[in-house]
């Protein structure tokens, strides 16, 4: 009797866990695929749900059959008579060949419908270019007249078509709540069209292993109402104001103007990699830092944006994000705390007047 209980414990445990899974899935977590806010991801969920229940059905039936068979026909005496030697039955075989075939046919048909819908590229979609680098994402609007990084701003209710490219190795573009993945492949161009249904800030990742800091390659998608988005775009296109004012950070008073000077100082290396529109900074290697003060995160999603974290990053980039390029140039201690404070004041000073939606 105890044996039986033990034998049945296993599928039971699995069932309990799968219930836990469903409950857990019901929570609207930052990156869950079960709370879509975009048409692409919603269509996938609409396909996944029936398939999931079919799967649960198959799971329950087959596991039950297995457990029942084992329990019912468990040997009860030491030398039981030899059971009847059944070698097979063609009709049954045919039956359980066809039964799964039918289920699979249904799944396939549903699949093909979703494929057709999700691979359609609306001609009216807004075109955005996304270029992946080790280990950050660059975004270009209007044929490169607007260049930003790590924050992808899109309008709500309008289809966007992301043109996906890779600058070095292969990456994978994933916004769980808006759309499924598409690879970013050096030497090839892929396209992903989707539409955000609600304003919000969404988590996104590089999903393909792309080297040392693959785990640190993230970005945010910021979906704004049409009007707000237009505002963001015009604001972004205008150059940042001349730096002024001071900022209290890491116990020091940072001066924006001095920060700008440090940034522009070739010896400090900043401008050899970074661009800030309307300044001498024309480096093309690193992310474009224009209006940096409005960034959601620092170092491509590694740290939430704050002046403290920015100072931490400038203090020793390599420790924040192993292997990253800036860490090989800006070594710990190369910038004095005062210089860091000034730079933070400068960078944080460049803010856009845009009302951001909540995290979804």
């Amino acid at each position: 009797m105890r044996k039986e209980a033990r034998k049945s414990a296993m599928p039971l445990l699995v069932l309990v866990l799968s219930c836990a899974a469903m409950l857990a899935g019901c929570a609207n977590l930052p990156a869950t695929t079960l709370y879509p806010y975009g048409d692409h991801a919603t269509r996938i969920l609409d396909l996944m749900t029936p398939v999931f229940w079919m799967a649960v059905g198959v799971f329950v039936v087959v596991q039950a059959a297995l457990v029942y068979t084992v329990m019912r026909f468990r040997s009860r005496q030491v030398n039981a008579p030899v059971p009847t030697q059944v070698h097979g039955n063609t009709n049954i075989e045919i039956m359980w060949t066809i039964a799964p075939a039918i289920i699979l046919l249904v799944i396939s048909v549903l699949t093909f419908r979703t494929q057709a819908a999700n691979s359609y590229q609306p001609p009216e979609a807004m075109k955005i270019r996304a270029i992946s680098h080790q280990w950050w994402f660059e975004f270009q609007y209007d044929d490169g007249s607007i260049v930003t990084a790590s924050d992808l701003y899109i309008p709500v209710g309008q289809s966007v078509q992301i043109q996906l490219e890779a600058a070095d190795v292969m990456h994978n573009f994933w916004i769980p709540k808006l759309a499924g993945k598409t690879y970013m492949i050096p030497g090839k161009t892929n396209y992903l069209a989707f539409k955000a249904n609600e304003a919000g800030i969404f988590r996104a990742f590089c999903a393909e292993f792309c080297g040392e800091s693959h785990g640190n390659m993230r970005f945010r998608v910021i979906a704004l109402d049409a009007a707000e988005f237009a505002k963001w775009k015009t604001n972004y296109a205008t150059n940042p104001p001349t730096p002024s004012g001071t900022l209290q950070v890491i116990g020091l008073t940072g001066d924006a103007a001095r920060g700008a000077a440090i940034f522009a100082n070739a010896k400090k290396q900043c401008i050899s990699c970074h661009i800030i529109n309307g300044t001498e900074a024309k480096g093309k290697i690193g992310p474009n830092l224009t209006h940096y003060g409005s960034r959601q995160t620092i170092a491509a999603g590694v740290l939430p944006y704050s002046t403290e974290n920015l100072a931490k990053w400038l203090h020793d980039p390599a420790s924040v994000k192993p292997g990253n390029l800036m860490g090989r140039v800006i070594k710990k201690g190369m910038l004095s705390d005062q210089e860091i404070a000034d730079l933070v004041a400068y960078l944080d000073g460049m803010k856009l007047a845009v009302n951001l939606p909540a995290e979804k």
Partner: protein
Amino acid sequence: MAIAEQKLTSVSPATASSGSFPWRTWLATVDHKKIGIIYIVSAFVFFLLGGIEAMLMRVQLGAPNNTFLSADVYNQLFTMHATTMIFLMVMPMNVGIGNYVVPLMIGARDMAFPRLNAMSIWLFLGGGLLLYMSFLTGGAPNGGWFAYAPLTQVQYSPTSGMDYWILGLGLTGVASIAGALNFIVTVLNMRAPGMTLNRMPLFVWMNLVVSFIIIFAFPTFTVGSIELLFDRQFGGAFFNPAQGGDAMLWQHLFWFFGHPEVYILILPVMGMISEILPVFSRKPIFGYSFVAFSGVGIGFLGFIVWAHHMFGVGMGPMANAFFSAASMVIAIPTGVKIFNWIATMWAGDVRLTTAMLYANGFISMFIIGGISGITLASPPIDLQQTDSYYVVAHLHYVLFGGSILGLFAGAYYWFPKMTGRMLNERIGKIQFWVMMVSFNVTFFPMHIVGTEGMPRRIYTYEAGMGWDIWNFIETVGTFFLAFSVLIFVYNVLSSLRTGEIASNDPWDAATLEWAIPSPPPSYNFLHIPIVSSRRPLWDAKYPHAAGDGHHGAANAPASVRYEYTDEETPGAKEIHMPSITFSPMILSGGLTVAALGFVYINKDILGLPTRVAALGFVLIGIAMVAYAIWGWIVDSRKDSPYLGQHH
């Protein structure tokens, strides 16, 4: 004429293996049983290594923003964990058990090519050691077991790790192909009289299928890795888009091999299950030919589904739809197998030995892995789940819940035959339940975190994503999983010394290997049995319950009887077995040395000295190979079957 089974107490393996360990007879052996055991033991050592790598990774992931491992070390560990478990654990474990059991099951005295067999094991070990050497020489491979281009190009992966990976797997690949050819010829050409193809045990069937998959699938991988080596060392650019190469070509070459590879990992285990379930249900397998041909079908279909690993790369909806449909079709033969297994136990006399528990655990867990596989076969769903922890869950349910649980079933089933001692059943059952529970605790939550958006292959993750608790549970589970493996190690070690002595046929089984002593003498069968049905031994024991089903009762005079033989048995001396030889080992050693040379053949670590040393290694290796081949020819003449002829 049911045969009374007498307990064997005369030949105990303890006495057989007492005194100093006979190194020579092992290192120079060509006996398929010894070679099989070397395979099994070394594969198990690699299993422990791969497990340690997994535990280190789980500790790192146990908490968000953890700093237990550096990013680079983590990447090396997950690369080596997968490479180890696939190429150095499951594959060789299958080969090892097959090596030991297949010739016995078909009533042969050895594999078709005993020396080639010896070469395979030493070449496999050489490749494995070369791979692990990379840890000591400046960094293990860090590009993932899938080695996607262009990350594996030298400018993105400058350490020699990937070169070790290419050449190490190259050696194991040659070993696999040689081994597969050996299995093909053995199974097709060494069967005992009357052992027709449709009477072969299903384990033999699956080994035949897998051997064909190996020789047809490995070449594309070989070509891919050769091209990768040219990229890294000889100025090629096959997979380097910056210079006109194509990153997708690697993926297609790799997965054209890589998908059949997963059937290479699972089919032999399905064969084991198809042997174990009938024995412990005291019934024949239900639908023998359906089970056999579903295996063949899976083998063929495995070659037209490779691109379902690449739904995200932009092949377009039409191509994706084709590969999706083809992949779904594979679920049908797989389902057929599962249903037949359940039907085999139906109305049987089901004896829940440890082996049987593991067999059922295999089915139960494989069902889960199969179902999650269906969701992954649907491109839209796959685009959310691929490269997330959902896939990690799926692959561990088929590879651990599938292959490895099945291998434990095989271990408990055949251990008595291989060692002459029974494994302790009570400990075995405890181990089974600890492993089953901890396995699910470890891997089931991965479905959840994957669905909640956790990408795979990340060495760290931020807090507050809702992943923390599940990752912590997984990490805890890992330790219990490791504990269950330790229980097994203890069981093996203690049973080897004090385990109950195994008779010829402790499980009242049906196939030929149980007719001869445990462990069998070097020549296996004193009299080559004559087979007249699918369950030769069973039919001899239970004539009233005999036969193939479709042929009715046994239709020809069978000559299957228990043999109580050893090396001293009269007549045994007259059986000519191939003599021991070191040539295969020297040949494999030579190839390994040459491979090591190739790792550095075009590297500027110490400038010229490195190149000279590397070239030296290559030349020494070639010389060793040449010497070994000469010795090989001499030995093969010494006991050539042609010269052994009298007429």
